[in-house]
């Protein structure tokens, strides 16, 4: 039996660079599919006020409330990490500090999500 060769670590693979890229893709796809549905449900305002209110009312429950929390989490990460990508591409020191910037993104994301969760969940569960 030959010894299994596992790929040695590189600057990119399996590290902050690649994982942030994976997370950026996944959150991007999630947001895109939400956007398609979001335009379709908002378009119901053109059908009738009752049709729009009926669909929005069906969103006003704890399960959809938690879904909205997940959606905002995806949007906030994609936004902050997108600004990091712009900094890596256009700022002279960007590539040097891309890892530190990712931890900045994660930290800001956590602070934003804690604040948003308190506000949003009190709307969702506060009745």
């Amino acid at each position: 039996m030959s010894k299994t060769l596992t790929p040695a670590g590189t600057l990119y693979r399996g590290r902050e660079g690649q994982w942030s890229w994976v997370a950026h893709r996944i959150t991007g796809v999630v947001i895109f599919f939400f956007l398609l549905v979001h335009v379709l449900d908002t378009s119901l305002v053109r059908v009738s006020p009752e049709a729009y209110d009926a669909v929005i009312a069906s969103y006003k429950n704890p399960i959809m409330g938690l879904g909205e929390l997940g959606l905002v989490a995806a949007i906030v990460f994609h936004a902050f990490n997108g600004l990091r990508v712009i900094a890596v591409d256009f700022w002279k020191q960007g590539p040097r500090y891309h890892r530190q910037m990712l931890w900045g993104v994660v930290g800001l994301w956590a602070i934003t999500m804690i604040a948003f969760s308190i506000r949003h969940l009190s709307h969702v569960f506060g009745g």
Partner: protein
Amino acid sequence: MAVPTIESPRSGRVAPGYTRTNSSRGNFEMIAWLFMRLSGAILVVLIFVHLWTSLIAGDGISGVDFGFVAGKWADPVWQIWDLTMLWLAMLHGTNGVRVIINDYAEKNSTRMWLKGVLYASTVVIVILGTLVIFTFDPCPVIDGVAHVAEYCPTS
């Protein structure tokens, strides 16, 4: 003896043998790359304000109903805001998914079909959303019945 000078490789003049894109496709991928960064930076502002007004300010998600939308679109600033957001987000998202399809769909026919569905969806959603923003009526009369709201004329 004259010192030979070597032209800077970034001077913009690339010998024809070294160009990496064929002329028919032009700079499309570079423009798309640049668009993702420009639209992304603008979308951060547009969407964060959008989330603030619909999920954080006032009653948050509990306050969203037909009247909320009507109140917003009574102001042309929010109409333009939402229109810009619709177009930029759809083009940004469509280009992102296009890149993902190109990355993972290996068969030419699969790529073509997936991108066909993607572009068709994009056109439908962008046109639908644009029409809705511009033809929105806050006080519609449906089958002879006028919508009742405090901001609608009563007669």
